[in-house]
């Protein structure tokens, strides 16, 4: 953001931005090879019983429009590049919510030859929702906790940038780490 504005104006503008961000975060859902359980539960949060839209959250099709990336699944090797690409297409500030045991640590699939054992090994994660799958209420709980944390000043973002650069470098260097498995 340009810093031509004087300080009080800038502060007021930041407040408005934060207010807008908390009241209408748009989300994108990415399935990186999960079993569908979490995805259906995320979809269920949008339906009348849970109605996530009352928090201003809208599920978006395009990563360019989204602020929050809701990611499920243990990240299969084929989906990894797509996940990084989707993440990079989102504009700052962006937040990642990992939903389900396999997105957190690989869960039941940890050690399988074709998975990355969790979203955190590929992109930085801001909120974790354990469960297999979490109940829709637990997903709402996690997103509300994430939105609550946004009211505090955002942490330094260089950290996240480095992780993603490292991940991209790793791909360029060794694109197919799973080649030993036929």
């Amino acid at each position: 953001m340009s810093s031509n504005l004087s300080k009080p104006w800038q502060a007021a503008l930041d407040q408005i931005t934060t207010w807008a961000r908390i009241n209408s975060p748009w989300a994108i859902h990415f399935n990186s090879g999960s079993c569908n359980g979490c995805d259906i539960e995320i979809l269920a949060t949008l339906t009348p019983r849970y109605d996530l839209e009352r928090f201003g959250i809208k599920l978006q099709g395009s990563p360019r429009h989204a602020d929050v990336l809701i990611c499920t699944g243990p990240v299969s090797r084929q989906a990894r590049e797509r996940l990084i690409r989707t993440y990079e297409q989102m504009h700052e500030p962006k937040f990642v919510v990992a939903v389900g045991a396999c997105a957190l640590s690989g869960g039941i699939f940890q050690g399988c030859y074709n998975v990355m054992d969790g979203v955190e090994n590929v992109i930085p994660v801001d909120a974790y929702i354990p469960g297999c799958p979490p109940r829709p209420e637990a997903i709402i709980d996690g997103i509300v906790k994430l939105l609550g944390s946004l009211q505090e000043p955002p942490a330094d973002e260089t950290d996240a940038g480095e992780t993603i650069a490292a991940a991209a470098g790793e791909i360029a260097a060794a694109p197919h780490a799973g080649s030993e498995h036929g």
Partner: protein
Amino acid sequence: MKFGMMFKDVSGALFKKPFTENYPAEPTETPDRLRGSLVWDPDSCTGCGLCARDCPAMAIEIEVIDKKAKHYQMTYHIDRCTFCGQCVESCNQGSLVMEGGEWELASLSREPFTEVGERPPLVVEETE
């Protein structure tokens, strides 16, 4: 062929109580059998490790520090747990309970996801 078959449902819903749960504001009722995070009772545990062996997601680690003094340490990784309940099924002593456990587990960091429990060592009275 007719038009607007769902119109009655949609317009009728305007005059009904909302179906939506007011969840974060009001807590929801959960069924009795709901499987939440695992609760370990250290007193009855014999440290056999069957739960850790049968766990499909390697979420439980039982470490026997001193077998004689029945001194065990249990590490439970909530972020790996699939809440399948096999550990409860495998435990012969009934030391593990999953029903009615905590389910609102979301967190902004990974720290709360590793629970370490320890059974204090028995004080063996020396009779000589």
